[in-house]
């Protein structure tokens, strides 16, 4: 085998300058200020007086080549043949001529790409792999993203939230989607179901034992075969044992639920970055539209929109009004599961008499 196999050219990360809009190249590091003339549009002015208009549009992330070609045609017509993408899979067209912004927007809308996601809007949800391509998902990602963005479309194309809202979704508890203002994540509720016949032939048992965060797994002989067993009292149903040992099936159509977390923030603006906190769990994993999860997200956003001050991120708003009020306003039940018991959890308790009545 292996004849005429080409050696890879280990070129690493390609240079970005040749792919950059010429005005961005020219004014690299020389931008002075910007404004947002309307949702979905940024207007940047450089120290040299050059101006550039950016039009941001949502995409489905999982794109067929014809969709990409369609976007390329738009870029050739309006944006000198250059585009860039944001971290949340939005596409951006840069225009040297501000007078063409309106017709570009019309064109994008006509082709079905919503324009928005800037400033204090809800941007596209951070999107993982799901059923489409991951080997451990309990739910889909593209469908969740599509459903939620459909229902939040108005908040994507308008800038009427107190501050920007970042969403993410994760289809297992590895949580590729990451921290966000609102995060919709799989939460398994039952320990793995072990197919003991397969364990010995597939799994490196010591590696699996080591993977468990709460030391709930131990080697065992089952039906005379080497296998693994789980102390179900200890197991936190995280699913960490499943990737290294597929016979430890953690995904369950019924018992793998969705949970919603809020208040993740990576920016340093005002408050320090923060981790997201649990709001509600036990939501059904309900394809193809996940209406229960979508409704919960909308409830949270509605309360935030009505009650938060300008510039307050979702977590900052809750810090100001307190969790008691947050649960009152949103109507979600507060349970013993909201009380953290992981290491360091004492610092999440209230060690003061600061209480709102």
């Amino acid at each position, binding site marked *: *085998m*292996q004849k005429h196999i080409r050696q890879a050219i280990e070129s690493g990360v390609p240079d970005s300058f040749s792919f950059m809009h010429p005005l961005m190249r020219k004014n690299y590091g020389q931008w002075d200020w910007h404004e947002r003339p309307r949702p979905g549009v940024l207007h940047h002015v450089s120290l040299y007086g050059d101006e550039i208009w950016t039009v941001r549009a949502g995409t489905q992330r999982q794109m067929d080549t014809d969709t990409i070609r369609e976007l390329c045609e738009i870029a050739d017509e309006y944006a000198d043949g250059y585009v860039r993408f944001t971290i949340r899979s939005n596409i951006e067209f840069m225009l040297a001529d501000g007078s063409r912004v309106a017709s570009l927007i019309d064109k994008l809308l006509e082709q079905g790409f919503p324009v928005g996601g800037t400033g204090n809007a809800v941007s596209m949800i951070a999107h993982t792999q799901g059923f489409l391509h991951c*080997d*451990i998902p309990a739910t889909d990602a593209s469908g969740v993203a599509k459903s939620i963005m459909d229902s939040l479309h108005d908040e994507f194309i308008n800038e009427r939230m107190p501050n920007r809202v970042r969403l993410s979704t994760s289809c297992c508890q*590895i949580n590729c989607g990451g921290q966000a203002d609102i995060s919709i994540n799989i939460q398994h509720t039952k320990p793995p179901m072990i197919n003991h016949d397969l364990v010995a032939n*597939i799994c*490196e048992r*010591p590696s699996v034992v080591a993977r468990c965060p709460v030391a709930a797994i131990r080697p065992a002989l089952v039906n005379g075969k080497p296998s693994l067993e789980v102390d179900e009292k200890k197991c936190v149903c995280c699913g960490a044992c499943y*990737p290294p040992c*597929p016979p430890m099936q953690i995904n369950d159509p019924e018992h793998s639920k969705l949970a919603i977390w809020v208040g993740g923030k990576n920016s340093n603006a005002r408050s320090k970055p923060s981790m997201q906190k649990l709001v509600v769990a036990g939501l059904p994993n309900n394809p193809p539209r996940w209406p229960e999860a979508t409704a919960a997200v909308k409830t949270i956003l509605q309360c935030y929109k009505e009650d938060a001050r300008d510039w307050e991120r979702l977590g900052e708003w809750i810090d100001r009004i307190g969790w008691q009020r947050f649960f009152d306003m949103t109507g979600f039940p507060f349970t013993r599961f909201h009380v953290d018991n992981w290491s360091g959890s004492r610092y999440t308790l209230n060690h003061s008499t600061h209480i709102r009545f």
Partner: protein
Amino acid sequence: MISDNMKYVRDAEGYIVQPADWDENFARKLAAEEGLELDDNYWSILCFMRGYWQQNNVAPDVRHVTRHLVEAHGYDKKKAKQHLFELFPYGYVKQACKVAGMQRPRAWSTG
């Protein structure tokens, strides 16, 4: 599962199912499938991997193998890794682990 004379049971991707069943003949046969010719360079690595497995019941990480090459053959660290990937051009998991009779490593499937 494919079985060779009922001796070496292998999974769909050709990895051995029971590392304890491995022997040198198996290694030669697997190496041939991968287009590799086993010389002393290979055997040093394979023996180390087998020893590690005997002790720990898990496949060693690449870094353990490179450490072995540094200690046993005096390579510097960068060279050791280069050497390893020259011997196994499709990578440690795909080739070294297979020939050394490790179960298919799954630690890196996802996450």
